């Protein structure tokens, strides 16, 4: 019986642990590093039809640090997109070029301080084997997929549209960039004759979490509400102000992504809790049947206790104390099991090392007690129905 409690507990506790672990990991990444605002060129008129490219002005980037909510802008990263034909080892290929800054210090107008822009501030998980390309050289970094497909290695020379570049590193981002050739924005601007232009800017801003109030129509707000809305750092307010400083731009929060991830996570958590509940119920059922079996062997005993004068409270107390003992023993065993199980599942399924939490112990103990005590309900009901006159009759 202790065993079945332990298994159920281990299952439940490890699922809960994992679910807490995964959600906190993901939400941490979302909150701390993710860019949550996208600045794009406004598309209007003929540009749409002709497919003519529109750009943002590189000079506007620094203005993101002079808006009202400037203190809440944690990171800004401009990107310039282009294309070229690459030649390596006699193989010709059409590749996408991406101009980036990894970490560039920009002077703030009228201030001595500088501020740092580039992918480091919005996507710090971008990883390079080698060096990021810098602005004064003809260096490029190639995406890891592109590298493995074409056989390009660090230090190789790569021809792009006939010009020679040196591969300074292999980049691993986990995104579309893995298939592209990355270089410094300034280099790309010069190479393609796009001086002072960027295609898009990602902004990571520290924002007030969106609440019901944030979605409210401003035109229907009272004066006090409008004032509150205006001085609250919602992602929408910050986006609106960025749109004002980037010339000809369209700025939108990219919470859709975050929201979807949150939804998936929510569903995953829900599934975990469901599984957890099922496993708890299953082992409670197991305890219940085992207990009833043992009760049937002890019918005489219960009958005698009743004859001697045990009232229902004392019968219940006897069963519950057995339940508590089983629960505590099973809880301990389950706790130990769950640590192992969570580690195993964490590595196998989520590919993430499991972080042990102190809260797991009370969780395990609690679920074990839940299993054993709820498993006692039916046996207790059965025990209370026992008639001593019948069971003590014996053979006559």
């Amino acid at each position, binding site marked *: 019986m202790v065993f079945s409690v332990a298994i159920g507990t281990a299952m439940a506790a490890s699922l809960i642990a994992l679910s807490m672990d995964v959600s906190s990991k993901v939400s941490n990444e979302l909150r701390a590093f993710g860019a949550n605002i996208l600045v794009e060129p406004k598309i209007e008129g003929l540009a749409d039809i002709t497919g003519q490219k529109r750009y943002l002005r590189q000079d506007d980037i620094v203005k993101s640090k002079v808006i*009202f*909510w*400037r*203190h*809440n802008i*944690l990171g800004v990263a401009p990107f310039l997109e282009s294309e070229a034909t690459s030649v390596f080892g006699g193989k010709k290929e059409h590749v996408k070029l991406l101009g980036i800054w990894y970490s560039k210090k920009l002077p703030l107008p009228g201030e001595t301080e500088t501020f740092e822009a580039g992918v480091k501030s919005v996507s710090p998980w971008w990883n390079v084997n080698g060096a990021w390309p810098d602005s004064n050289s003809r260096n490029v970094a190639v995406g890891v997929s592109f590298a493995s497909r074409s056989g390009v290695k660090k230090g190789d020379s790569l021809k792009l549209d006939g010009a020679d570049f040196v591969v300074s590193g292999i980049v691993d981002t986990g995104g579309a960039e893995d298939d592209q050739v990355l270089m410094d924005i300034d280099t790309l601007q010069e190479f393609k004759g796009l001086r002072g232009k960027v295609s898009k800017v990602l902004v990571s801003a*520290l*924002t*007030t*979490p969106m*609440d*019901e*109030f944030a979605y*409210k129509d401003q035109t229907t707000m*009272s004066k*006090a*509400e409008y*004032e*509150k809305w*205006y*001085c*609250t*750092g919602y992602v929408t307010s910050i986006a609106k102000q960025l749109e004002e400083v980037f010339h000809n731009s369209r700025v939108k929060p990219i919470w859709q992504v975050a929201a979807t991830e949150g939804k998936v996570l929510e569903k995953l958590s829900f599934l975990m809790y469901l599984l957890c509940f099922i496993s708890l119920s299953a082992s409670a059922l197991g305890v219940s049947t085992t207990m009833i079996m043992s009760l049937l062997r002890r019918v005489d005993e219960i009958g005698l206790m009743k004859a001697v004068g045990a009232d229902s409270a004392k019968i219940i107390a006897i069963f519950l104390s057995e339940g508590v003992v089983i629960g505590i023993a099973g809880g301990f065993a389950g706790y130990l099991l769950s640590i192992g199980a969570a580690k195993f599942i964490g590595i196998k399924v989520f590919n993430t090392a499991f972080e042990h939490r102190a809260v797991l112990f009370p969780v395990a103990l609690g679920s074990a007690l839940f299993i054993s005590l709820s498993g006692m309900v039916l046996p207790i009901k059965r025990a209370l129905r026992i008639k001593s006159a019948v069971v003590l009759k014996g053979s006559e």
Partner: protein
Amino acid sequence: MSSSVIYEAFWVGLKEALKAGLVWIVLFSFLQVIDRKKLSGFFLYGILLALICPLYVFTLPVTPQLKELISRSIDTSFALFFILSAFLLAHGSGMNLLGAIERAFGKTVIAAPVLLLLSALYFAPDFAGNSVFLMELAEVKESPAAVYISATAGIVFGLAAFYAARKKIRVDFIGSFFGLPQLFLFIAMIKLLGGGIKGFSGISLIPSVQTGFMKFFHDFVHQVFVILMVPDHPLLKTTAWNFIGILFGPNFSSVAALAALLAIPMLFLSHSFLGPVPEPEAETPADRRKIKGLFMSDRKRKAVSVLLFVIFIVVAWFSESGENISKLYIPKPRPVVEDKGTVMIPLKDPTMDVRDGALYKFSLSYRGEEMRILVIKKDDGKLSVCLDACEICPPRGYGQKQGFVVCIYCNTPIPVATLGQPGGCNPIPLHVLIDDNFIRIDVSEILQKWDYVKSGKGKESVK
């Protein structure tokens, strides 16, 4: 937002009703068991009496002084009930005192006014605090009527729930778990867990009990030192104080406060389970056992509520300190005074160290006004000293959460590194002088900037 205001108002009402209902049921059960059911009416009159308090509060402007007064009186009324119960529990072994009180309980002349007074004392501060909270809620909302109606609905709903459940409640069963000390302890516990009022510096009573104890320890040790005439010794100033400082640190005092809070209930519990049982006179051994058994089971029953109290306190205590990380931490402002036009804030004293990375607030009362200053250490090691207000929001001040400073009014998180720079929802920086021991601020600097906040000029400039 708007509907959450309504929800909060509803919850405030519901909470008060549930609290009153719970206390009522337990008190009623207790009185029925000791056969003094009629006294329970006076408890209800006490609640009515307490209602005068919020009615009066509604006519007052909401000032920090008022909130301070209310939160003090909530603390005090908790302390009153806790000390009463602790006192009675301590006497739980020798029943003489209890007997005297119970005899007094038998006399309506004594019991009724006492009950009336206690009931009024118990509810008045909470009612007043919640009224203030409702007024603040109503301030955000265009139609305050909705807030008040919602709160009333909460009260009505809570009371209706109790009214509906009244037939199901086994009064004699509940009453058998309570003696007089247990009754007071239960009432104090309800206060401790449900007495917190939003928008007050101590969000719940537990941290305020903690700081209360911390202060008590500090004052006590300080007094002892004064008596021993050692405070000025140079040796003590550095090493010893650092060591003694541990005693005033939040960890130690939290544990110490917990121990002090639980000492008497624990003593009572151990007595209940292990204490000697008087040997009764009876004809047969079985009868003697029966009397002893009844005595012990009654004693254990009466211990259940105390045990619950202990468990609740421990859980609440640790979940509170655990939650401090994820919850908005809003320190209580420490009073500072101006001297010849300068305000001096010590960098370190036995109860605090402003360079420990936590948010510190100080309040200056000047010309009958209260102005708050916040101090926090930035990542680069520099201290940032600002007004506890930004240019645009009403001056509710800031809290601290996960490495950010968060505006209480608009909930906007602000990176600590940007503190000291004006603009946005950042607190307004102050020009200060910092030396080895003190932060020095000109009063005129504070006044000028605080007036600016109050005038709402910052708001105009944004628009």
